[in-house]
């Protein structure tokens, strides 16, 4: 999809967006590899519904709203981690199994790592949208990015509960996503919140200049 966009834009696009093209290629290849023989195809499809919509939205809005390279990088890292989780149904991800063994944990915590990563990695792109599209003042954009991540996490937990009731009614949080933790939703949300707060604290403390000024390809176009 990105390639066809590149074609319409001509060689200048490829030159200025080599990073994005490379990123999309790496992600595309790893996604395809992880789409082969997942532990549970139904769970894989469920996990990837969100990816299809999200990547579709990124591609569809690419020309109207081009994120900074830093944002695309963070989004790609998050989506790659999610692809790994989807391949192993999260609850059986090898890295999480290893953590469980090594630290004598009660459950596979790979999903918790991803909830934290969601906050840590996605707050920055959200802030970029808030700065460039909603034109929020910088301090407000930091706060609203944290709120945006927490709101998305909240809605995700609601949808997850509905899905859990649809897939295994009456089991409550004992289903796959909850792994038997009654406070699963709250733990997931607080990790996303901490991740987002950490990312915005880092962004604020480093005083990273607004992406409005540093977006190379927009200036070139």
């Amino acid at each position: 999809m990105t390639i066809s966009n590149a074609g319409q834009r001509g060689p200048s696009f490829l030159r200025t967006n080599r990073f994005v093209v490379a990123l999309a290629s790496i992600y595309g290849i790893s996604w395809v590899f992880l789409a082969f023989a997942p532990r549970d195809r139904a769970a894989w499809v469920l996990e990837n519904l969100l990816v299809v919509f999200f990547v579709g939205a990124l591609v569809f809005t690419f020309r109207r709203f081009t994120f900074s390279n830093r944002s695309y990088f963070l989004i790609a890292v998050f989506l790659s981690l999610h692809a790994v989780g989807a391949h192993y149904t999260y609850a059986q991800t090898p890295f999480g199994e290893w953590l469980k063994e090594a630290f004598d944990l009660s459950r596979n915590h790979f999903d918790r790592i991803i909830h934290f990563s969601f906050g840590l990695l996605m707050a920055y792109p959200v802030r970029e949208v808030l700065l460039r599209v909603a034109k929020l003042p910088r301090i407000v954009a930091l706060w609203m990015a944290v709120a945006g991540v927490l709101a998305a996490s909240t809605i995700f937990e609601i949808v997850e509960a509905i899905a859990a009731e649809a897939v295994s009614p009456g089991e409550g949080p004992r289903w796959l996503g909850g792994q038997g933790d009654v406070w699963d939703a709250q733990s997931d949300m607080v990790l996303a919140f901490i991740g987002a707060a950490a990312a915005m604290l880092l962004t604020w403390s480093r005083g990273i200049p607004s992406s409005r000024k540093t977006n190379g390809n927009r200036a070139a176009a």
Partner: protein
Amino acid sequence: MATEPLRRFQNRRFLHFLAAAYAVAWIVTAIRPIDRGDWFIENLLVFAAVPVLILTYRRLPLSDASYLLLAIFLALHAIGAHYTYAKVPIGDWMKEALAWDRNHFDRLVHCLFGLLLLVPVREVLMRTVRARGFWSYALPFTVIVSASGFFEIVEAIVAQIVSPELGTAYLGTQGDQWDAQKDMAVAVAGALCSIVLVAAIAALLGRKTPRR
């Protein structure tokens, strides 16, 4: 707007009535609550919110409509705090009449949190950061939903401090394993209803800013 004249509290008759009515309701419900400890925990929110409203009045006096919605929400919360939510008479009556398995008064207040508070939050965002059009709905929606999520996180932490062994039996959840998700879902639904209503009213009146 920045250009709006500062409305002095002395001239706002409606706010005098509102503040007096809420104060009376709060004092009446503060007398002999069912559980003083629970009443105190529930009122921590009030002790934080009301001073903020008073202290921000001079810099950002809100519309009568916003203060009315805030007062309705706070009054219902005062009733809930008096009866520890799980034992509010109207909720018990509805439980009997409609054969529900629990007292749903807390759910009602979670829904009203979204429904009532979207408007004041929207007004604040429109006036302070000049949220317009799509963002004048998306930003307050984000604030309301994230606040609901934040509340559930705090509730979980409080529940584990107060009674770690009780877990889901804690009075906030009344034994429902999806309690947090349902609370958040009704808040989201309330906020969405409010967005539709505000958009409809704005379209009918042909203006985008709530006026006093």
